[in-house]
């Protein structure tokens, strides 16, 4: 008897849930309902603040985030993962969605980022430039060459004319920072914003512009969006001066 009751309860919840979903989709008046923003992991902190401010501005709207490595996210979107807006850490990754005709508009660059050398707090190995990473006894970790940050690191080292053998090719930029923060590696090449997000256990060594690589972050509305108006409004907020000020606070440069 109890089992049957539970079953009835489940059916009721499922039906009620479906009803609510259909309702909110039907009444998609401006700036109500919810959207899901799929964004590169390096945007995590900045977008959470932007999302909070946006929701305060529009109390009827709800913004949810799905953060991850840009390439992983593209794979998920191609496989049908739901989402209304996609922000990528580089343009080639966004281009994959353009090629797959999965965007509802053309991508728009909203932020720029550049590389820095991440070292432990106090810079115990006294690393001052990229060439120092090649010194004997310096344990370096980079992103894998197939991940955007790894590709950029490769380009920067080539510009500096330095050859470095890393001990590990990490799967994403946060992993590089955490290996340095834990003290297992002496240095890594990451984005300026990741050094900032890494807290007090790490610090950054700037890379001069002549050896640096500038990453452009594009954002676009996905074809599968259920709430174009809200997605558009969020995109507009990100490129607005309020959004840009927040991004700058996390170390991003404006486009």
């Amino acid at each position, binding site marked *: 008897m109890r089992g049957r009751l539970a079953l009835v309860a489940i059916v009721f919840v499922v039906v009620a849930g479906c009803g609510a979903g259909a309702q909110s989709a039907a009444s998609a008046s401006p700036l109500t309902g919810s959207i899901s923003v799929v964004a590169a992991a390096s945007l995590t902190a900045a977008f959470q603040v932007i999302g909070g401010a946006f929701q305060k501005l529009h109390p009827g709207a709800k913004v949810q985030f799905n953060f991850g490595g840009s390439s992983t996210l593209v794979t998920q979107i191609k496989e049908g993962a739901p989402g209304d807006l996609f922000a990528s850490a580089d343009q080639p990754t966004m281009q994959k969605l353009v090629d797959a005709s999965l965007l509802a508009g053309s991508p728009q660059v909203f932020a720029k980022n550049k590389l820095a050398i991440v070292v432990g707090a106090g810079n115990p190995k006294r690393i001052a430039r990229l060439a120092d990473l090649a010194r004997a006894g310096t344990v370096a970790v980079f992103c894998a060459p197939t991940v955007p940050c790894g590709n950029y690191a490769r380009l920067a080292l080539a510009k500096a004319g330095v050859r470095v053998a890393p001990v590990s090719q990490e799967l994403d930029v946060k*992993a590089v920072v955490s290996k340095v923060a834990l003290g297992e590696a002496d240095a890594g090449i990451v984005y300026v914003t990741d050094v900032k997000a890494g807290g007090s256990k790490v610090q950054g060594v700037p890379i001069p512009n002549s050896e640096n690589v500038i990453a452009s972050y594009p954002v676009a509305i996905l074809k599968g969006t259920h709430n174009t108006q809200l997605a558009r409004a969020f995109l507009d907020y990100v490129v607005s001066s309020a959004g840009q000020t927040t991004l700058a606070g996390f170390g991003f440069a404006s486009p």
Partner: protein
Amino acid sequence: MRVPNNRSESPLPLPLGLLAGVGAAFFIFPLLGLLVRMPWASAWLKLTSPTALQALRLSLLASLSATALAIALGVPLAWVYARVSFPGRNLLRALTTLPMVLPPVVGGVALLLAFGRRGLIGGWLSDVLGIHLPFTTAGAIMAETFVAMPFLILTVEAGFRSMDPRFEDAARTLGARRWTVLWRVTLPLVRPSLVAGAVLCWARALGEFGATITFAGNFPGTTQTMPLAVYLALETDPDAAIALSLVLLAVSLVVLVALRDRWLGSA
């Protein structure tokens, strides 16, 4: 697959059969999904790429070494749990099986905090003995052992417990020494559990991802095992990722089926 079965076939109640069918389908459909998407035409090329072969070789080496290590250390531990009663035994058993429920990435961080350059004993290991574990193949083997050994410990302990101790008593009364009893009586009697535990442990080690990437990092030929190679390939070349996964699955399936028939009967 003809296996003697002593139990009589029981009639299958319909609801049970239906649920069992759904249960089986739950596992079969994802595998079918991989098979359907398998790029058969280019599969051979992708599988024989140097990266894939290197990863496969390293995965076999690391998972087999981890299993050997787990047998060497885990069987004695299981024996102690089954035969020696001491205060704190349950707590110790829980601690040594914790990696089964711990998110593997957390396990990897814990390994770093113990055996890393600044870890509890890792600093001593590297300063005094010159042994560096993170970012090495030894580190990858350790990470896999950490996550996989609990499966062996639990299985073998159950084997020791369900064994009839009178066989050992008989051997001893007939004059066999303790080591002889262990080698000639006890271990042969728990062989099914030992094999089952070792296979479970090996399968878990082969698929290990989180602890390995965290503790040992990812470098082709040194620490990049199949699961790491699959993950990276998924981002750039999904076809290669699917092909690699199917090889991993095929190897595991052959071993699991073969061992079950050979040693475990149809139980």
